C-alpha cells in the first residue's frame, strides 16, 4: 500500500471505529449497572409502599386492576402479598401465582415459570405478611439493549460520513506535499535552486533538506564540469589564436625581422600545442584504463635517473637524487609510475625561477620531490590537480595538465599525490605516498 493518503485513511477509520466500539461497550456496562441500581431502588420502594398499605392481617385485596395498555414495558412490576403461613393473600395483575421469592427478606433472584425475576421481599411478623415486589429480568435486559441500540443506530449512519470527512481532510492535510511535488516537477533540468523548506510542514522538511543537499551537489558537479570545459576551451583556443595571429603577422610583415620573429613564435606555439595534445591523450588513456592490481614494481632510483636524463636541462637547475631511492621498489605498473614521476619532475623544473635545486627524497611511505619555485598559494593547493587549472604561479609553458596527470597516474598505481608548500624555505614539496599496507619494501 503505497498511498500515504489511503494508509492514513484506513488507520484513522479503524482507530475511530475501535474507539467508538469501546465507548459503546462502556456505555452498555455502565448503563446496565446504573439501571440495576435504579430499578432495585424502585423495587425496594414499591415493596415498602405496598407494605405500608397493608393493614395488620386484614387485607382487602382489590380485584385485579384492569390491564394497562401495551407499551412494551407493561407489567414490569409484579407484587404478591403472602401470609406468613404461606397463603397468597393478594397479587397484582399479571403477577404469577407461584411465589416470586423464597422466605428470606431482601433481594433475591428466582426463575418463575421459566422466567427470571428479581424480587425484593419484606417480612412483617406483626402484620403477618410477606410482601414481594418483583421485576422481570428479561425486561431489564431489553431496556439496556434498547438503550445501546439507540446509540448504535446513529453510529452506522455516521461512520460513512466520518470516513468521507477523514478522506477529504487527508487530501487537504497532504496538499503541501503535492504543492512541493508540483513545484519540483514543474522545474526544468537546469533549475537547481533550493526548495524553500521554511514554509513547508515540519514533517517533510527533512526530506526537502535532503533534496536541497542533492540539488547543491548536482549543481556543484555541473559548475565544476562547466569550469573544466571553460578551462579546456581556453587552453586549446588560446594557442590557436596565437598561431593564427603570428601566421597573419608573418604574411603581412614587410620586414624580415618581424616575419622571422612571428615564425619563431609560431614554432614555440606549435611545440606547446603538441605537448598539450600529448598530455590530453595521456589523460584520455588514463581515464579509459581502470586501476588494475598489478604485481609489477619498478626501481625508483633507476626510473628517476631515466626521467632526469630525458628531461630538458635548465641552466642553473641542479637535481639531487637521494641514494636511499636506489633499490626502492615502487608498486604499480612501470608506465604509470613513470608518468607520475615525470610530470612531477617537469612541474618542479618549470617552476624554478632561475637557478635552484631540485631534490628527490625517500619518505617513510614513498618518495617526494622538493623544488625552490614559488610554491602554490594555500587556497589553490586543493585545485591544482584539477584539469586545466592554472594558478597564479603558472609557468609560461605549462598546460595545466601536468599535476592532473601525476595525480591520476599516482592513483592508478595505488598511491596518493600530496602537495604542500615547504616551510623551511620557498618551494613546493610533492609527496607520492602508498598506503601503509602497501609500503614498498
Amino acid at each position, binding site marked *: 500500500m503505497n498511498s500515504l493518503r489511503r494508509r492514513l485513511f484506513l488507520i484513522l477509520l479503524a482507530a475511530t471505529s475501535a474507539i467508538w466500539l469501546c465507548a459503546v461497550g462502556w456505555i452498555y456496562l455502565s448503563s446496565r449497572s446504573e439501571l440495576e441500581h435504579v430499578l432495585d431502588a424502585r423495587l425496594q420502594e414499591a415493596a415498602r409502599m405496598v407494605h405500608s398499605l397493608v393493614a395488620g392481617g386484614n387485607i382487602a385485596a382489590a380485584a385485579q386492576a384492569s390491564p394497562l395498555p401495551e407499551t412494551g414495558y407493561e407489567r414490569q412490576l409484579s407484587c404478591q402479598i403472602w401470609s406468613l403461613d404461606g397463603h397468597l393473600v393478594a397479587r397484582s395483575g399479571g403477577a404469577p401465582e407461584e411465589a416470586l421469592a423464597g422466605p428470606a427478606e431482601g433481594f433475591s433472584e428466582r426463575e418463575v415459570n421459566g422466567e427470571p425475576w428479581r424480587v425484593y421481599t419484606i417480612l412483617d411478623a406483626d402484620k403477618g405478611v410477606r410482601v414481594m415486589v418483583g421485576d422481570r429480568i428479561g425486561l431489564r435486559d431489553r431496556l439496556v439493549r434498547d438503550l445501546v441500540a439507540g446509540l448504535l443506530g446513529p453510529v452506522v449512519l455516521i461512520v460513512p460520513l466520518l470516513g468521507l470527512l477523514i478522506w477529504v481532510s487527508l487530501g487537504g492535510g497532504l496538499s503541501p506535499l503535492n504543492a512541493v511535488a508540483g513545484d519540483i516537477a514543474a522545474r526544468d533540468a537546469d533549475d537547481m535552486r533550493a526548495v524553500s523548506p521554511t514554509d513547508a510542514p515540519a514533517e517533510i522538511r527533512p526530506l526537502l533538506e535532503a533534496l536541497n543537499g542533492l540539488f547543491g551537489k548536482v549543481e556543484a558537479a555541473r559548475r565544476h564540469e562547466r569550469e573544466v570545459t*571553460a*578551462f579546456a*576551451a*581556453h*587552453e*586549446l*583556443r*588560446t*594557442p*590557436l*589564436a*596565437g*598561431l*593564427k*595571429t*603570428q601566421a*597573419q*603577422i608573418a604574411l*603581412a*610583415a614587410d620586414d624580415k625581422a*618581424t616575419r622571422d*620573429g*612571428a615564425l619563431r*613564435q*609560431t614554432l*614555440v*606555439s606549435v611545440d*606547446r600545442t603538441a605537448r598539450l595534445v600529448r598530455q590530453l591523450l595521456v589523460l584520455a588513456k588514463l581515464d579509459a584504463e581502470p586501476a588494475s592490481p598489478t604485481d609489477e614494481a619498478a626501481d625508483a632510483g633507476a626510473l628517476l635517473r631515466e626521467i632526469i636524463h630525458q628531461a630538458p636541462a635548465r641552466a642553473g637547475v641542479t637535481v639531487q637524487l637521494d641514494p636511499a631511492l636506489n633499490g626502492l621498489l615502487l608498486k604499480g605498473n612501470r608506465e604509470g609510475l613513470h608518468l607520475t614521476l615525470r610530470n612531477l619532475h617537469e612541474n618542479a623544473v618549470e617552476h624554478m625561477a632561475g637557478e635552484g635545486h631540485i631534490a628527490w627524497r625517500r619518505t617513510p611511505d614513498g618518495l617526494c620531490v622538493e623544488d625552490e619555485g614559488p610554491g602554490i598559494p594555500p587556497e589553490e593547493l586543493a585545485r591544482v590537480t584539477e584539469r586545466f587549472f*592554472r*594558478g*597564479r*604561479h*603558472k609557468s*609560461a609553458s605549462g598546460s595545466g595538465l601536468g599535476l592532473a596527470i601525476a595525480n591520476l597516474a599516482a592513483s592508478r598505481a595505488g598511491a596518493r599525490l600530496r602537495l604542500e608548500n615547504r616551510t623551511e624555505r620557498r618551494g613546493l614539496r610533492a609527496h607520492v605516498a602508498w598506503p601503509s599496507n602497501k609500503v614498498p619494501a
Partner: protein
Amino acid sequence: MRILVVEDDPVLMDGLKVGLGLAGATVDEVATCADARAALAGSRFDAVVLDLMLPDGSGLDILAGMRARDDATPVLLLTALDETTDRIRGLDAGADDYLGKPFDLDELAARVRAIARRGHGRAGPTLKAGTLVLDPATLSATLEGRAVALSRREFAVLAALMERPGMIRSKGEIEERLYGWQEEVESNTVEVHIHNLRTKVGREAIETVRGLGYRVRGQQ
C-alpha cells in the same frame, strides 16, 4: 592609438603586440589582473583588449572595476568561451565588443579602431581637419585629395592631434600615445615629428601653443 592588452599567453601576447603595432597602435602588455589594474590606474588608453581567463582572476572583474569607477575606456573582450550567454554576460558587464578565440588579426584591429573611435565620440571612420583627412584603417593621409606619405609615428602624432580638432595636446600626452612603457622616449622626438609633419601637410596646419602644446585647427 594606445592600447592596453591583457593576455597571459606569451605567444598570443607577442602576436597582438606586433599585429596591432602593424595596424598603427602602440601596445602596452600585461599578463595579470593586478598588473592590468595598475596600468589602468597609471595611464590613459584608447582601448583595452582584455582576455577573460587570467591567472589571478577573471577579466570581467577588471571590467567591472573600471566601469565602477566611471572609467569609460572602450574594452574588447577576448575569450575562448564564445557561447551566446558568455558574450551577453561580457557585454552586459560593460564591454564594448567581444571576439572569440581564435580570431582574425585584421578583424581584431578593425574592431579595436571602431571602439576607440566611439570612445573619442566619433562615428565616421576618418579623421578630418580642413582639407586634411586621415584614415586609421589604412594609416594613410590625404591633403586636398592628394596622398601624403607619413611614417607610422608621424601618423600617430597627427592622429592624436586630430582626434579632437581645436583641442591642445601637450607634448607629454603625445609621447604617451607614441610609446609603450618599455620604449625609451627621446627628449626631442615629438618636436622632430611635428617639424616633419609641418613640411608635409603645411606649416599652418599644426599650431604651437607656447607652454601648453600643439593643436590642429578644426573646420574653418
